[in-house]
């Protein structure tokens, strides 16, 4: 049965979004045989939807800007469970990574001086929170993700990276030492299954926002990397931490960038009141995303929501004037007119907090090496296995990501992973070959699916899963609700494992892909649910009605979910900075 074709590479990157293509570029530039496995053509990856920008202290808007201030903001934003060493690395290396992108041709917007245009975003400050609002987010109008992703694809074309476009990675292949030695992948166009063998396997598989019914995420954000890692028995970290973006378009879920508020837009309730002044007197609409999202939900719950059902609020932009809107936020005008039937030049956009970003993921060190925890509680590197971007938890976002930091995370840690693997390849990587049985093990799930004879429809099961997550694990959480949600997921598991695949054809069979994606969604949802229930405090995006306070005594730590026992463990947060003393946890106000 395991008699399938093998393709061999020095490095295989699973995922063709920002972090994957940045890692691939690094490796292709140094001449290593590198392949990107991507289930969609690379420029269709979800990075393309990023709008507002990439936050980085390049000192364009303010010549005295310092990366240390960005570091402070990010640590505070993370509610102090972001790893300070990783945040320091990201903020310090960031400018170099941004300038590289610019040199590759990224069409950033410009200032009069010809430098990269930067706009204010939420949670940004000068002088360690004491110097007022900073403008630190580098932007290409409101299409920064699109510009970045296309530039990276172009860079990879120039450097002749091998792309396995419209290939779907099914499961991880592990050798006798439990090291990762590639993946089993499916060519979507032909249906052929191949063992893609590699000395280094990088998961850059992005997020999983599709576990929720209402999300800004693309259809393809199904947590495939997280699902594969969990099925392989590897742990995930801080997976209960899901960011709800304050401004998803009501009904459609499509994202409206925080850059709208950065450019001077603000939220109003049904009375026309700018309510964020009450919740965050200093930063107002530019407080952390978790803070703004919760404030919006409270407004709605207390009867001050807008619309006939009072179930959303408004984002007001018309006071900025048509000229500014056309120049700075052209994509938002287009999206609002299309999906909200509202022209922001004249009327406000109906918005509601919408699932946006997975702060958790595969735990890694700064070099992108995936980690597990041994019996003594020590970090242990998983040989051959790396992760970067949204799929990874390095962790620079902790319990709440700041706007504009995801694109920086992608390029900085895509690059860092690539550089580290380059070094390892130079020094020589020797992993045992996978046996027939090892490959067979990675084929098991697919074989079972291909043999399915009854079962329920993937689309029905997916809707059920998304509804459970939306109802029991949303912006506000409560222990008894979550326990009920966990039970419902338990009931759902055998049904999803037995999902129907009536169409057994090979040519571009998207039913098969959707069934596999559904199984990945389930893994992410279950890990989220169990971990969320276990974290008995409120921190960052994780807000509990039954544990309203942050509990530093017990929970100033990462959660680690171990799939085999479905157990939640703890892992220490890194508080070791190279350049200064660490930032001690403070009460977080904006």
């Amino acid at each position, binding site marked *: 049965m395991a008699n399938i074709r093998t393709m061999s590479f020095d490095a295989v990157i699973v995922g063709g979004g920002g972090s994957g293509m940045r890692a691939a570029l690094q490796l292709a530039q140094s001449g290593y045989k590198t392949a990107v496995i991507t289930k969609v053509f690379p420029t*269709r990856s979800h990075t393309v939807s990023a709008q507002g920008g990439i936050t980085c202290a390049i000192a364009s808007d303010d010549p005295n800007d310092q990366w240390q201030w960005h570091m402070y903001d990010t640590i505070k934003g993370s509610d102090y469970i972001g790893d300070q060493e990783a945040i320091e690395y990201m903020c310090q290396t960031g400018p170099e990574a941004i*300038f590289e992108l610019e*040199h*590759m041709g990224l069409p950033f917007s*410009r200032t009069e001086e010809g430098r990269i245009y930067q706009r204010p975003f939420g949670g940004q400050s000068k002088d360690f929170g004491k110097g007022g609002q900073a403008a630190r987010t580098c932007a290409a109008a409101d299409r920064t993700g*699109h510009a970045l992703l296309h530039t990276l694809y172009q860079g990879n074309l120039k450097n002749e990276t091998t792309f396995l476009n419209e290939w779907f990675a099914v499961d991880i292949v592990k050798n006798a030492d439990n090291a990762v030695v590639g993946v089993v992948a499916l060519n979507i166009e032909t249906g052929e299954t191949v063992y893609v063998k590699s000395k280094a396997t990088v998961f850059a598989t992005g997020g999983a926002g599709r576990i929720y019914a209402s999300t800004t995420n693309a259809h393809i954000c199904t947590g495939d990397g997280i699902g594969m890692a969990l099925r392989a028995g590897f742990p995930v970290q801080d997976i209960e931490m899901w960011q709800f973006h304050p401004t998803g378009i009501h009904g459609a879920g499509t994202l409206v960038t925080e850059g709208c508020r950065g450019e001077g837009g603000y939220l109003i309730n049904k009375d026309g009141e700018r309510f964020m002044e009450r919740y965050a007197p200093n930063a107002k609409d530019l407080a952390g995303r978790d803070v703004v999202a919760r404030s919006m939900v409270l407004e709605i719950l207390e009867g001050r929501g807008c619309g006939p059902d009072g179930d959303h609020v408004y984002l007001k932009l018309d006071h900025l004037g048509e000229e500014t809107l056309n120049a700075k936020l052209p994509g938002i005008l287009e*999206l609002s007119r299309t999906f909200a039937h509202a022209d922001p030049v004249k009327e406000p956009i109906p918005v509601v907090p919408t699932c946006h970003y997975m702060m958790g993921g595969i735990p890694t060190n700064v070099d992108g090496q995936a980690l597990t925890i041994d019996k003594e509680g020590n970090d242990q590197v998983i040989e051959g296995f790396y992760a970067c971007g949204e799929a990874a938890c390095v962790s620079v976002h902790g319990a709440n990501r700041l706007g504009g930091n995801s694109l920086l995370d992608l390029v900085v840690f895509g690059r860092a992973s690539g550089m580290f693997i380059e070094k390892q390849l130079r020094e020589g990587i020797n992993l045992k070959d996978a046996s027939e049985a090892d490959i067979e093990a990675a084929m098991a799930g697919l074989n079972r699916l291909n043999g399915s004879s009854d079962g329920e429809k993937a689309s029905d099961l997916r809707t059920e899963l998304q509804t459970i997550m939306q109802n029991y694990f949303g912006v506000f959480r409560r222990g008894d609700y979550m326990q009920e949600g966990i039970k419902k997921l338990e009931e759902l598991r055998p049904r999803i494992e037995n999902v129907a695949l009536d169409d057994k054809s090979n040519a*571009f069979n998207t039913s098969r892909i959707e069934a596999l994606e559904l199984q990945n969604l389930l893994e992410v949802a279950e890990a989220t649910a169990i971990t969320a229930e276990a974290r008995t405090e409120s921190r960052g995006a994780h807000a509990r009605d039954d544990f309203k306070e942050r509990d530093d005594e017990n929970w100033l730590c990462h959660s680690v979910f171990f799939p085999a026992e479905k157990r939640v463990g703890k892992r220490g947060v890194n508080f070791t900075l190279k350049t200064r003393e660490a930032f001690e946890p403070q009460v977080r106000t904006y």
Partner: protein
Amino acid sequence: MLNVSIYRYNPEVDAEPYMQDFKVDTQGKDLMVLDVLEKLKAEDPTLVFRRSCREGVCGSDGMNISGKNGLACVTPLSEAVKKNKLVVRPLPGLPVIRDLVIDMSQFYAQYEKIQPYMINNSPAPAIERLQSPEERAKLDGLYECILCACCSTACPSFWWNPDKFIGPSGLLQAYRFLADSRDTATEERLANLDDPFSVFRCHGIMNCVQVCPKGLNPTKAIGHIRNMLINSAT
């Protein structure tokens, strides 16, 4: 009930393509065409189409909707339905893999031909290369291309010579780099385009402009390239 007619072809089952009729209950809502396809796929999982962002920026779901190329996710029924009927076919002119999914290799090959990346061999500065807002403004209307192929597959010249004519999308990108003040390979780029087919097969039909879901104007960009080619020859 909305009448929907969809192009079907599964190479493993069907001897030839056919149009299949469905009825969809839209509950009176002005859904996007993609929403209708998702509803149909829930009923008939064998229906195949590409989709990703569902907001018009990834370019996955280009298709021919009631006779006009466009993105299913941002085309509302109110624009696409005529006499209570929606007709969906794959983008024309390229081989069909299955149902609404076409083989885009030829389209991508033309994109790769124009060297779609910045060329500037001078040593990079320690910061960004400076560019004035006016210079940067020249890239507006060019860099936003999402490679959905709606334009090139609406172009008769591309249908006749898909291997030799770059097509509107590729040429728009060619001009995106020619117009960039940071790119230094203008001569090389023009030399690569200077043959009877690459650019000059454009006959100004402007189907590309009519269908571009991002409101871009490849014909105008092609005009600029023509002028550059003519000027560089004299």
